[in-house]
């Protein structure tokens, strides 16, 4: 039955995309070409949000984060956390149309740092900072119960399959690339890539770009079997939260007491966050591991340098994301006769009456900025790869089953698998009856 349901749902989710795109595809049509009695109404712009709208949303976010922290650490209730997750999905997703979200706010903050003319609204700052602050204390509670992007994936998870750890290690690099690219593009004023390619915002708005809806539908279909694929392998904000959660004051524990290693929770996490207790390596392995560690430490600066070089080589390709650079390229191709005719970009530029050389100079300046930015981007990726290899070369000691700090979304699924937790709940229930 489960399998059949899952397959049906696959079709349904694809339909959701189709449906959204269908609504979108039915575009408005031109006015009639002959006179009619109909008086066309004057077009009006939608009213701006009332003052304080963003502040209310920011307060709601902080309240939701506080509630999540309470439910994870005090109540230890999966059901309550699921309820909060659904409320967040409705409020931050469907009601607020998925904007502003902390994931996208990375770009606003980056742009503020690099563009003196861009002021960061206080609401956006709170959306960016509040989950980070809560993560420093409570781990990734934002991901587990507040983020609408995570919630929609969690809601469709029906038949989780275990992703091999090696595959997860490889795929997770995508999130770092995404984060680096988002920062680079925002810093250069090119593109808000996270918002442009937000896979779920189309579902929240029941409308959107066809390609993005397909991307979102694919992720949801994958999400039927693979828990939160976007959060684990793509989310740029998740990358920051991963690192901060390692430093968290408190961490989610599967058991409220000492682990008795009953192994009942071993497969309870659909996100592969539960780690088994470790055993001491044989002496020979230690020697090999030490040599490997030394090699990787030497390799690290080489990887960073290679990444910087590769990034710098890609500067032209990356610079094309900037509209000014694209316009310069179009104008030049047309001027040099490499393309025939014209297009909107060239026409728009021509309409400004500006000198093409001025455009070229401006675009060349942006390209130079991309030279530095791309090199830093590449160096960052080199550092990430080196760091990842180093982390895989080091053994961490664990005496019982525990949720890995970086990977745990604090969803509370594992609580009920622990017999000690059940015992605690039973005692609490009896105490409540008494």
């Amino acid at each position, binding site marked *: *039955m489960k399998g059949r*349901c899952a397959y*049906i*749902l696959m*079709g*349904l*989710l694809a*339909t*959701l995309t*189709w*449906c959204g*795109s*269908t*609504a979108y*595809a*039915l575009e408005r*049509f031109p006015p*009639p070409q*002959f006179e009619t009695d109909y008086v066309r109404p004057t077009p009006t712009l939608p009213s701006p949000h009332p003052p304080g709208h963003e502040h209310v949303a920011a307060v709601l976010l902080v309240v939701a984060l506080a509630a999540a922290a309470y439910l994870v650490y005090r109540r230890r209730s999966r059901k309550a956390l699921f309820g909060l997750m659904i409320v967040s999905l409705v409020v931050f997703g469907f009601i607020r149309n998925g904007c502003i979200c902390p994931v996208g706010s990375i770009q606003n903050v980056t742009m503020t740092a690099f563009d003196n003319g861009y002021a960061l609204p206080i609401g956006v700052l709170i959306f960016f900072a509040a989950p980070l602050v809560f993560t420093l204390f409570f781990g990734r509670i934002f991901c587990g119960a507040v983020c609408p992007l995570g919630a929609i994936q969690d809601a*469709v998870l*029906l038949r989780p399959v275990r992703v091999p*750890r*090696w*595959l997860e*290690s*490889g795929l997770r*690099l995508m999130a770092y*690339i995404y984060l680096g690219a988002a920062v680079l593009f925002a810093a250069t004023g090119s593109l808000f890539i996270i918002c442009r390619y937000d896979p779920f915002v189309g579902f929240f708005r*029941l409308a959107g770009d066809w390609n993005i809806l397909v991307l979102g539908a694919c992720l949801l279909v994958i999400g039927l079997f693979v828990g939160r694929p976007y959060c684990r392998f793509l989310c740029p904000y998740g990358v920051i939260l991963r690192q901060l959660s390692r430093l968290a004051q408190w961490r989610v524990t599967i058991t409220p007491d000492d682990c008795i290693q*009953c192994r009942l929770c*071993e497969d309870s996490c659909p996100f592969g966050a539960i780690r*088994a*207790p*470790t*055993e001491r390596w*044989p002496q020979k*392995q230690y020697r090999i591991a030490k040599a490997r560690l030394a090699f990787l430490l030497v390799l690290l600066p080489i990887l960073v340098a290679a990444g910087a070089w590769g990034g710098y*080589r*890609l500067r*032209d*390709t990356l*610079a*094309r994301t900037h509209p000014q650079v694209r316009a*310069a*390229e179009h104008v*030049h191709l*047309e001027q040099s006769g490499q393309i025939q005719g014209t297009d909107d970009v060239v026409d728009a530029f021509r309409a400004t*009456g500006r*000198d*093409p*050389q001025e455009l070229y100079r401006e*675009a*060349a300046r942006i390209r130079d900025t991309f030279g530095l930015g791309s090199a830093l981007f590449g160096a960052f990726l080199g550092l990430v*790869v080196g760091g*990842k*290899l180093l982390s*895989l*070369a080091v*053994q961490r000691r664990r005496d019982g089953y525990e949720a890995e700090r970086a990977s745990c979304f604090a969803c509370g699924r594992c609580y009920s*698998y622990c017999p000690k937790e059940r015992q605690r709940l039973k005692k609490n229930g009896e105490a409540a009856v008494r």
Partner: protein
Amino acid sequence: MAEMLKQSDLGKHEIACRTAHATAKVAGVLSLIFLVLLVGNTVSTRVIAPARENRLAAMIAQLRSDPTNESLQSDIRQLDLSIRQTRLWRLTFARMGSHVLLLTIVIFLIASKTAASLAKGLPKPGPRRDAGRRQIHEAAVSRWAVVAAVIVATGAGWGLLEIYGPLAFVGAQSRGPAYASMAEKSMQWPRFRGPGGAGVTRFDNIPTQWNGPSGQGILWKTPVPLAGNNSPVVWDKRVFVSGATADQREVYCFDADSGQRLWTGDVPTSPAAGKKIEMSEDTGYAASSTATDGQRIYAIFATGDVAAFDFSGRRLWHKSLGVSENSYGYAASLETYQDRVIIQYDQGDPESSKSRVYALDGATGRTIWEAKRDVYSSWTSPIVVEVGGQAQLITVSNPWVIAYDPSGGAEIWRAKCVAGDTAPSPIYAGGLILAIEPYSQLVAVKPDGKGDVTASHVAWKMTESGPDICSPVGNDQFVYLLEGSGTLVCCNVADGKKLYSQDLKDSFMASPSLVGNKLYALSETGVMHIAEVVPEFKEIAKCELGEKTHASPAFAPGRIYIRGAGNLYCIGARP
């Protein structure tokens, strides 16, 4: 009793489980139904609707050729209405359908999750394996997975590099702009009357002695195939002139050192050229001087044909502006600004609204901007000058002196201060725009205004002279007017006060020029009158060319280029 209670609980669990399953099935079936309906809706929208719209478009096209067909009009209205109604209906259906679908999916998810939760059994851990070995193996495979991901990412980066390649404009940009700067132009003679149309050269090693008939001081003399009254344009080692007859238009490039004709560029005949052109004999078909931006040479003819050539003689483009409604024939010369060629194309009267200023893309001939002008036809040439760091395109035509922004064509200011058949071109001297009203006056306008500055920015008017053809020339102290009858008038540029007038006892069509502190005025008979630039007339020399001349001379370091009635002359010392 306990057994019965347990059985009762089991029964409830079974009922809940079945209910959840049934709900999931119903929601799933409903979702499928809506899926089919929405797919059908989309197919209809994308396949059937366009066919009907095409039919409507065909009917509308038919109506254009048969506008009085009332039956067709009625059919169009009905079909248009039907299409609109259908599209509105489909739009509503798609919107509602997607909401219902979302609802059924939510119900399906809830029911499915409930059913899965109720059916969930106790976890059954598998046999305990060697954890240490497994962790070592996992770490090893993970490292290789990271390496593989790096290889994939590198491959993707390399692929992107291969697909998109480097940015082409960067090379173009590093080679410098595709046109000469104002500073570069000031070192050349890029248009009629040189840089900014001022008639002033910055070189003072210009010959003051020559004699055409004897060949003294004549570096070379070469015939120009077709006639033309346009003046030579000089860029480095090239001299450009154009020539035309009623059915032939040519641009010539001569070697500046030898006078050898390097190439001849044909300008095609537009259909408009077949039209009889109204013009005076003195004007001819090639009265307009060429202009260059350092990369290309541009030419315009009385037929309204404009063309651009590169310096190797390859014609880049040609376009026709149509024959100008101009009683003496089109005679305005071209100006360039950055990579665009500026054409003042005045014709008819203000009511006919036919006058324009065009800025054409030098590389393609495409119109970058054009400005309508409420003026009469004119024969003046536009000039681009820099005022307070901003470029202004100055035009003179009865009754307005108008300044435009040459970048986008926006009008900056205008002054109503000239009348009649304006032919002398304006100049910018002593911080003033100087324009001539033929047979009447010289007007000085301060160019720092906005809008209509007639009342506020006309600095002075000098009403004692008004040449009919020759343009003025001036510096920070004096401005010289040369009447066709031979009277040279010198005024103070600051206030327009007349300092002297001198009859040169000759007739003139070429405009005078300034070379340092010397004034050069070339008469119709080919005699160059050279005088000192001082508050009173002091003749320095008279040099005979031996050929009639109408065109103004061009200056280059150590040389003068003069176009005679049939020959092009270079005056200067042999290298």
